[in-house]
């Protein structure tokens, strides 16, 4: 995290860390994973009482940040969650709450926003479609005008917390361009099917939309501004995702450095071998660079800076790759225990790998960056 956290941000971080360490230690994460439960709604609601979902949504929609940069504040939570590979729909809930709060018809969504902030409802960003890479700006899902609203037909997949979400933010192609619609999970014609997931507690689902009727009030972003809205959502998703990843990598690096001091071979600690010291130095470099670029992306997105799109793709293209480089090297430095189910490092590798490939792989973000630069 930043070196210049305010006293209030530090207090918030400490409160969040305390809650997570007590309520969601890695042993609990493993139990949830074994029982096939993503997260417990009551736990999520109690965590939300700390303010986890209240900061990315702007003050006009009832949000309340700590530092004035609400997304940066939310990244503190994401980073702490990364340190413990916590469950919970932090990214989807905050992203959708922010989108609803920034919508022209934000007042129509006041109840949903309040429920998301309180942790009583869960929302997810449905940005993938089957058989394709990450192309959130060119959805195959169709929105056919129907009175004030639309009839939605198509399939979304890799939808985070899809089987526990109450609402989906769906991007679809309408006759006059992209639209974004808020679709309740219980809408007739909407079917949710859980998918296989690499992470133990971050689960994904397929969401089929078969002529789902969405009323006019469910239109979050009309056709003329949906592209800008999706770009904004990419900034938020990448900021939260990279923050979580750097939290995970920091924790792994800490316990691996400690391991290098504690583990002896040939009568000396691993930390005394230059061949290994140099690898730790490389990982330290990559870690600091990940922290630097993730932080810059979060600030840019929070301030809605002119280069926020660019910095999001800079950060994701680097953090996605380097995070797994670091953790894989830490696996190697642990020796055989590093590739067992018993050791916790695979929980972190799972989370970092999911975050590497989801919402744009490093290569996909390099291609996006080339577009932004006008190559």
């Amino acid at each position, binding site marked *: 995290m930043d070196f210049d956290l305010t006293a209030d941000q530090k207090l918030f971080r400490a409160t969040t860390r305390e809650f997570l360490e007590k309520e969601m230690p890695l042993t609990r994460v493993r139990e949830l994973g074994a029982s096939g439960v993503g997260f417990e709604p009551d736990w999520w609601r109690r965590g939300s009482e700390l303010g986890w979902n209240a900061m990315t949504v702007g003050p006009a929609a009832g949000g309340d940040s700590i530092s004035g940069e609400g997304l940066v504040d939310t990244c503190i939570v994401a980073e702490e969650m990364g340190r413990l590979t916590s469950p919970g729909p932090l990214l989807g809930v905050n992203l959708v709450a922010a989108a609803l709060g920034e919508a022209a018809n934000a007042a129509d969504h006041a109840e949903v926003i309040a429920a998301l902030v309180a942790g009583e409802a869960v929302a997810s960003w449905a940005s993938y479609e089957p058989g394709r890479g990450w192309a959130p700006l060119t959805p195959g899902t169709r929105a056919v005008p129907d009175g004030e609203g639309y009839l939605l037909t198509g399939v979304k997949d890799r939808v985070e917390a899809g089987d526990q979400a109450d609402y989906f933010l769906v991007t679809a192609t309408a006759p006059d361009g992209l639209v974004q619609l808020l679709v309740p999970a219980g809408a007739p014609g909407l079917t949710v099917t859980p998918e296989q997931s690499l992470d133990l507690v971050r689960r994904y689902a397929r969401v089929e939309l078969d002529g789902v009727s969405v009323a006019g009030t469910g239109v979050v972003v009309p056709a003329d501004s949906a592209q800008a809205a999706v770009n904004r959502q990419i900034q938020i998703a990448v900021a939260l995702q990279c923050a979580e990843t750097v939290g995970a990598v920091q924790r792994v690096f800490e316990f691996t450095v400690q391991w290098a001091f504690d583990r002896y071979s040939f009568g000396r600690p691993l930390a005394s071998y230059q061949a290994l*010291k140099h690898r730790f130095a490389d990982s330290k470099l990559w870690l600091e660079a990940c922290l630097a*670029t993730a932080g810059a992306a979060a600030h840019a997105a929070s301030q809605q800076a002119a280069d926020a799109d660019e910095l999001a793709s800079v950060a994701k293209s680097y953090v996605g790759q380097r995070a797994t480089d670091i953790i894989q090297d830490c696996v190697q430095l642990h020796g055989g225990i590093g590739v067992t189910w018993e050791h916790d490092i695979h929980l972190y590798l799972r989370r970092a790998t999911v975050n590497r490939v989801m919402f744009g792989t490093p290569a996909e973000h390099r291609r996006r960056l080339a577009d932004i630069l006008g190559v």
Partner: protein
Amino acid sequence: MTQSVTADLEDVESFRLRARAWLAANMPRLVPGQANSLEEIGRINDAMWPRARELQRLLYDGGFAGICYPREYGGLGLTPAHQRAFNAECAGYEMPLVLNTPTFSICGPTILDMGSEEQKRQHLPAVIRGEEILVQFLSEPRGGSDLAGVTTRATRDGDVFILNGSKIWSSGAYAADWALCLTRTDWDAPKHRGMTMFLVKVHQPGVQIRRIRQVGGGDEFCQEFFDDVPIPASDVVGEVNGGWAVASRQLFHERNAVGGGSPYTSGGGQRRRGPGTSSLIDMVRATGQSGDVRVRELVAEAHAIGRIQQQLIARVTAGMLSQQLPPPSAAIMRLFSGESATRLAEIGVEIMGSHAAAADDAASVGYGVSFLARQAGSLGGGSTEMARNIISERVLGMPREYAADRDVPFSQVRQGR
């Protein structure tokens, strides 16, 4: 970093606006195509040095020289934020970039931190006026990374020391006026306790300079030979036999400078090898490769490296200033610059393909030349291996490497040929 902070500092924005207006009225503008940074220049030539002195004098007369240097030594006593604002405004103007490293970013700050009051008054104002160029006499032909093993000898003779030996890899020594020269003065003490740092006049009887041609064609590096050169005792920097403390400070400033984090560089920023992204994008267009997905990814990667380097410098600098990172963390910036220079040189050759080897224009083959000199960025300013030692040992606290010469009188330390 040493700087005098006064209560009545001009605020950064007003300073920026004043700098903008002054630059527009007084500094020569770069003509289109003229290089804006040393990384684009790629190679230093002899004409740059006298020109740099003129440009520096212009900055001094305008009140924009030595921004982070204290007022009592001819500077402005302002903050790194003022320097960054000024550097941002300098884009598009001809600036005395060759003076940045080592004169302004390494030697000047070392004199400021470790020099006597007389030395500071003699050298720093002259440097800031563009009248004095400084160089480092550190490395020796016998070895670069083991700096504390220097064998250039300074022997006391009354009020003078007599200097004999040889230094190497000193950039721009032929154009410099004074050098910070690390010597051995006590051969019976263990190696770190028998060295003394001197300020040595570069052009004087007994000092011979040989220029070294590098693989990229440039010849900024020099080797110096000292033959009974008398140095007044008043030119000792720090304590006699306390030269390692001075050298350590100098290395700290060097890592900052090479990593791109020095607050003392003025205009154009850092010496960073490898092509800038904008020229790379132009080249991609010129060679009709804009539609090639692989090439687009490589350009984006190069661009990301540049942005992340800036972000890393900002982070590590802030961490060191607030003491949340220890001072040796400057090695993190240095390691990034070496590694990124390697990758950028690779990307250049990958994108240019066979035109890096043969083309109608120098710019295309320039990518090939940059590739040949690729490792320079991982060697100059301390090798990346040393940076990795520093990060693991002094940032992460891992055990030091075994040294056969530790606590042994230097005269008994085994030397290679």
